[in-house]
């Protein structure tokens, strides 16, 4: 019984883990290296409004605004919808239907984002255009709505998990005191599940910020903050959409390229920070298949 | 490092020589900051049934689990001291733990059969050690199931899943599996605690037969069981060994007042 297999096994598992760590490091490093040009040469100019590479203007604020607004819209729609749906699934739905419904949710979560994009072009933008009598249905609002559908399964699944993690005894105690169902949920369950739910929302936020394909096709790709600022029926631009559209067209190594990489780096940092914070909110180990 | 002095050797029974096969010297264990075992000094005698008794929380399980070092991987346990198997320090750095565990086998409180057939369970501990012919495998399965008093009941269905057996049978299967590795010493941590009286009886009889070939060390809560089948007794309380010796002595003529109190009333304030 030699110790060799054990040794080899140990080397294998350690290297496997190191590879992942190295990859993350590489991603951050290379993104940083390639945005250095932009940071050093354009500097504060990156945080201006005008993006026009031929003139040497590399302001990313419009894209940042777009990303944030589209995400906010999607959360405004998806969070209430998702939490109420999760409450329904967790507390009201008969247990025998649960596996069926949860599987359905997982299937919904699995629809590729490009297909959402196609549906967005073919239907949502047409509806928005007709409903609001616009020139084109490719607006910030359209992107927000589409995005909300995409992050809905995440919120529902994780909130349902959060509610399920609350032990039965709290429900029984509250009901035993004569509380109505909604009071049970509001006073007994939600406070306990609050941490996990916040974590779920943060994760959904991260996903929404990082979504590219669907947003790219329906947002209109205009690199300006709309006038007035809250006109969501105007086209706009997000970081991801910009990257998706232009990165292939910009020359590697140019300032144009570098500024775009800077945008990507910014996005990456924001999303990673959100992910880390979300993990702090989760009390127990959660399953994350997305 | 204190050497074993005469005071650690148990008074020999009038007719037989006693050989200590395991010697525990100044053994201490901490769980986080709690001092669980305090300067334990005791020996376990070859080919006898050595029984460790004591109230809950006295450290019996911790002691027995220290003998095959199964607590090593448990977090937050630290230990200091000496345990010797046939004169060799089992806590020595150079020692091959996996080899140790083939010399000292362990049966746990809850039977844990692998999701395989009965025969495969028996062979589980040894088939990776060397290549066995089909004939050898059958022989090993039969011998060890017989030694564990299970052969009669399962000989015709060796390929059935092990978890189709009753709990008492599963525990005997675990014993057979441990015996198949051919250890010198058999450690049993409250092996009949989860079982009904009939299965308990069967395993008691089993142990009486096994002691001819193996040294048995077991932990129990059940004073009557200890009285029935043990040869030597170790009485622990609050992480210390209060008394140890021949069964007759401890039950009838204990040196320590608390020992006789516990063994008669099961009451111990220590």
């Amino acid at each position, binding site marked *: 019984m030699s110790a060799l297999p054990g040794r080899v096994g*140990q080397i294998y598992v350690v290297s496997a883990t190191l590879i992942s*760590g190295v990859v*993350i490091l590489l991603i951050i490093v290379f993104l940083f290296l390639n945005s250095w040009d932009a940071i050093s040469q354009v500097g504060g100019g990156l945080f201006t409004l005008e993006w026009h590479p031929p003139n040497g203007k590399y302001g990313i604020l419009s894209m940042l605004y777009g990303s944030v607004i589209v995400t906010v819209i999607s959360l405004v729609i998806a969070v209430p919808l998702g939490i109420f*749906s999760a409450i329904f699934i967790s507390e009201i739905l008969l247990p025998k239907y649960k596996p069926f419904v949860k599987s359905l949710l*997982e299937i919904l979560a699995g629809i*590729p984002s490009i297909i959402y994009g196609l549906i967005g072009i073919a239907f949502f933008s047409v509806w928005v255009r007709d409903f609001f009598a616009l020139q084109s249905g490719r607006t910030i609002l359209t992107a927000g709505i589409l995005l909300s559908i995409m992050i809905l399964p995440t919120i529902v699944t994780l909130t349902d998990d959060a509610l399920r993690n609350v032990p039965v005894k709290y429900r029984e105690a509250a009901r035993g005191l004569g509380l109505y169902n909604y009071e049970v949920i509001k006073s007994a369950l939600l406070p306990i599940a609050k941490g996990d739910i916040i974590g779920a929302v943060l994760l959904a936020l991260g996903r929404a910020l990082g979504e590219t394909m669907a947003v790219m096709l329906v947002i209109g790709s205009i690199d300006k903050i709309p006038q007035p600022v809250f006109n969501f029926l105007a086209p706009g631009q997000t970081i991801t959409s910009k990257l998706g559209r232009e990165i292939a067209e910009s020359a590697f190594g140019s300032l144009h390229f570098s500024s775009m990489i800077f945008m990507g780096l910014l996005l990456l940092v924001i999303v990673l920070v959100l992910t880390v914070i979300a993990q702090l909110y989760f009390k127990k180990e959660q399953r994350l298949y997305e | 490092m204190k050497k074993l002095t005469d005071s650690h050797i148990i008074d020999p029974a009038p007719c037989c020589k006693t050989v200590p096969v395991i010697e525990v010297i100044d053994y201490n264990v901490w769980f986080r900051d709690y001092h669980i075992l305090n300067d334990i000094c005791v020996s376990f005698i070859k080919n006898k049934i050595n029984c460790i008794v004591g109230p809950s929380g006295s450290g019996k399980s911790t002691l027995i689990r220290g003998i095959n070092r199964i607590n090593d991987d448990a977090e937050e346990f630290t230990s200091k001291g000496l345990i010797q198997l046939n004169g060799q320090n089992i806590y020595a750095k150079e020692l091959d733990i996996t080899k140790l565990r083939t010399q000292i086998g362990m049966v746990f409180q809850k039977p844990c059969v692998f999701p395989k057939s009965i025969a495969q369970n028996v062979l589980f501990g040894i088939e990776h050690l060397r290549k066995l012919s089909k004939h050898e495998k059958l022989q090993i399965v039969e011998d060890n199931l017989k030694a564990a008093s299970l052969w009669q009941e399962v000989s015709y269905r060796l390929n059935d899943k092990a978890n189709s057996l009753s709990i008492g049978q599963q525990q005997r299967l675990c014993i057979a599996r441990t015996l198949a590795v051919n250890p010198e010493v058999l450690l049993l941590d409250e092996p009949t605690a989860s079982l009904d009286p009939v299965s308990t009886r069967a395993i008691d009889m089993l142990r009486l037969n096994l002691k001819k070939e193996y040294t048995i060390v077991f932990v129990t809560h059940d004073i009557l069981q200890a009285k029935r089948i043990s040869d030597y007794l170790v009485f622990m309380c609050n992480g210390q060994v209060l008394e140890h010796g021949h069964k007759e002595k401890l039950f009838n003529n204990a040196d320590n007042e608390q020992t006789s109190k516990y063994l008669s009333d099961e009451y111990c304030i220590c």
Partner: protein
Amino acid sequence: MNRRFINKLFYGSSWTAVAVCCLVLIFLLLTITWNGIKSINIEFLFTASKNFGAGGGIFYQILGTILLIIFAAIISFPIALGMAIFRSEYLKNPLLKKLVEAFIYGLNGIPSIIFGIFGLIFFVNVLNTGISWFVGSIVLGIMIIPTITLSTYQSINSIPKIYRETAQALGFNRWQVITRVLLPQGIGGAITGLLLGIARAAGETAPIMFIATAFSGVDVPHSLFDPVTALPTHILALAQQATNKQALQNGWGASLVLLCIVMIFSISGLFTRIIFKTTTER
């Protein structure tokens, strides 16, 4: 009285929310199926595309997707498995545990476009591989590592401690405990994770659109460093020609095919999760 009313309101809102979600789901699936089915015929599935997809079929796109996901699976599985085993069996230090957890969840949260850009910088430019399907597989593989790791880890970690101790007491060293006791029982989680990971990889566009695919003139790659064409990127190209009716129609067809491929793996994954759960609970 007021409380009762609010309670009713609450029920109403929950039902409404669920109804909306169901409607959305039904709408999505129906749309894709209804529009896509018109395109599905043998010719569509088995001929090459023409006119940037506005004509012809999607045969090479299907092949491309399958090629990419097979190799992504091959590349990612060993790494993910190793990581899950490491985290479950080797890590004791709480700080290191947090660190590895950070690796997994960090990798999981990175947007897919960032993977695409990283691939563009690191492989296509720095390593000068050019547009290569193999590089695409590598990037996709890296992307799905967390999915597989998390699922595997869950199933290995939930094996009760007693199994490990029993095996150790029989004289198994750590690696033997892993290979002879934990992996056979925990393999279900690994397979589930792999299937779900493949489902995810099949549908991704952003990671591969810069580094692995080209839109025209591509059929079967002849070497590791040739580009390939795949369904998601093809759909993207078609979506951008949405005014062309034929292109749009082909887009629906390709979407339906892609959705079917993704669903096959997703459902298999869910299926294996159920199967393996019931056997370990015996």
